[in-house]
């Protein structure tokens, strides 16, 4: 058992390394880096929604918060290590507070969706209105609609002049993505993750088993917030500017679309969905005929109607049908969404 999992770890690390080295051969790293960041962001929602059954329409709030926290603290502090940590910590704490408010209030699914969406819009509206000189945090002006440019970007920890950008930012982001993926995987296999899945499957039974679902959902929500915050900070480093658009309705919709297209309740689905659709968006941006929103909207509608489980489960189904090897049938992943939406 143990050898087997070590073997798997080595193989998957090798695959990841090969992918990491091959990708830049075909594509500019400036295009690739945001795709990886989207993957991280997709994973954050995939974790809480796909495995925790938490319907969050406002993952962009934590993403944007991470980006803004990074930008503001980098302007005030300079050296990037502490700002990066803050950009993970503050969204996590914010998610914990928001989550506690919602989960201890036993709000239903739809209300969760409403509140998270509304919170995102509050950030959007507020940030847009901070153009005036009175909106300053330390020495950082919030800048309203124009956002915050000109902050210290990622540097080698301890060496404020050794910037990590371009190709190196790509490699660092890739390593972070793999690392977080590995941590999330570990989390899902740990008792905490298994209990989270139990809660997704049946909240009543989970609490009858003696698990405090409110505390556990709050914790999971905070972890999702932390990952989204990290993604936001990396995005700020890539874009070298943060704007209120990070909190926009369109941004938060896209994260949801990535998860649904990739497959909720799968580990790779949201990451691949994010990277794939992110690339599609990039391609659409190259031409002026077809609007990006029309394509994303159509994709979401079509997936909800015809492929609600997403691509990865569909491919797995086709695979298991055609290969016909039923021996390693793992308990299929069920998505809570189906059950919830019927309730």
């Amino acid at each position, binding site marked *: 058992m143990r050898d087997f999992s070590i073997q798997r770890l080595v193989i998957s690390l090798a695959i990841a390394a090969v992918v990491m080295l091959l990708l830049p051969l075909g594509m500019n790293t400036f295009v690739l880096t945001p795709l990886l960041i989207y993957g991280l962001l997709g994973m954050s929602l995939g974790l809480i929604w796909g495995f925790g059954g938490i319907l969050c329409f406002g993952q962009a709030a934590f993403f944007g918060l991470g980006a803004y926290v990074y930008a503001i603290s980098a302007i005030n502090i300079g050296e990037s290590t502490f700002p990066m940590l803050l950009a993970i910590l503050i969204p996590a704490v914010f998610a914990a507070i928001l989550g506690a408010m919602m989960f201890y209030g036993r709000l239903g699914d739809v209300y969760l969706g409403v509140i998270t969406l509304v919170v995102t819009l509050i950030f959007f509206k507020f940030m847009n209105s901070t153009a005036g000189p009175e909106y300053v945090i330390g020495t950082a002006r919030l800048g309203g609609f124009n956002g915050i440019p000109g902050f210290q970007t990622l540097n080698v920890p301890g060496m404020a002049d050794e910037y990590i950008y371009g190709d190196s930012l790509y490699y660092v982001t890739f390593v972070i993505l793999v690392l977080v993926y590995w941590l999330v995987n570990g989390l899902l296999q740990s*008792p905490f993750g*298994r*209990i989270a*899945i*139990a809660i*997704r*499957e*049946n909240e*009543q*039974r*989970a*609490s*009858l*088993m*003696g*698990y*405090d*679902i409110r505390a556990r959902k709050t914790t999971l929500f905070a972890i999702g917030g932390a990952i989204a915050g990290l993604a936001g900070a990396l995005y700020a480093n890539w874009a070298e500017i943060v704007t209120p658009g990070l909190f926009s309705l369109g941004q938060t919709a896209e994260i949801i679309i990535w998860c649904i297209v990739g497959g909720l309740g799968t580990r790779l689905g949201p990451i691949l969905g994010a990277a794939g659709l992110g690339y599609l968006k990039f391609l659409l941006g190259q031409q002026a005929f077809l609007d990006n929103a029309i394509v994303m909207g159509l994709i979401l509608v079509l997936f909800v109607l015809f492929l609600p489980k997403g691509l990865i489960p569909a491919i797995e189904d086709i695979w298991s049908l055609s290969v016909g090897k039923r021996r390693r049938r793992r*308990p*299929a*992943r*069920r998505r*809570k969404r189906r*059950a919830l939406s019927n309730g």
Partner: protein
Amino acid sequence: MAETVLETMGLTMRFGGVTACDAVNFKLKARELRCLIGPNGAGKSTFFKCLTGLLRPTSGHVLMQGEETTDWQTHEIASLGVGIKTQVPSVLDGVSVRENIWLAARRFFPTKEANDKAADIIDRLSLNDIAKSEVGRLAHGERQRVELGIVAAGDPWLVLLDEPAAGMTSEDVERMIGIIHEMARRAAVIIVEHDMQFIRSVATTVTVFHQGAILMEDHVEKVMADETVRNVYLGKKA
């Protein structure tokens, strides 16, 4: 004499105009096996839900092992060592039988012991053949058994079973009776059932619910011979 492990005083639950539980005073001793009967809508399931915190009673008190648990959260009550099989099977559909039982055991034991515990329960309930199956795909009787396994996995001292034999084959019922007797050696058990055959084979004392209140409480044979009980309940069935 064994001590009282569960007591309710004036337990009342109203839904708008309907009083589903009406000032119920109920006592149960350690390792006692009790049957709860009563016609449909008598309030038996509601009583169970009030005990486990799934419903917040309108008024009255619940005491478990002498401690007041009336307004506790469901998970707090469950953590005391109270297991319940709900009337509509409540299981984790999307994961395996083993995972269901492991999760229940993990609340009370560390991971390694929970593994052993789950294996043990799966053995005892003869769930080996289906241990790896997804619970959502199982037949009704199997799901009932899985739920019983979930209840047993936490080594509870109070077990509430709401119609455990409903919709099961006679073979399954036989096995169920065996399991219940085994549970009753370590825990106080309350069973809600409609099947008289079943009740005779497990319990001695029977409590009769009618319109939310306790109509009578006595030895099974006496209850069955009683005129009023026959009228409200047996009369309809016979």
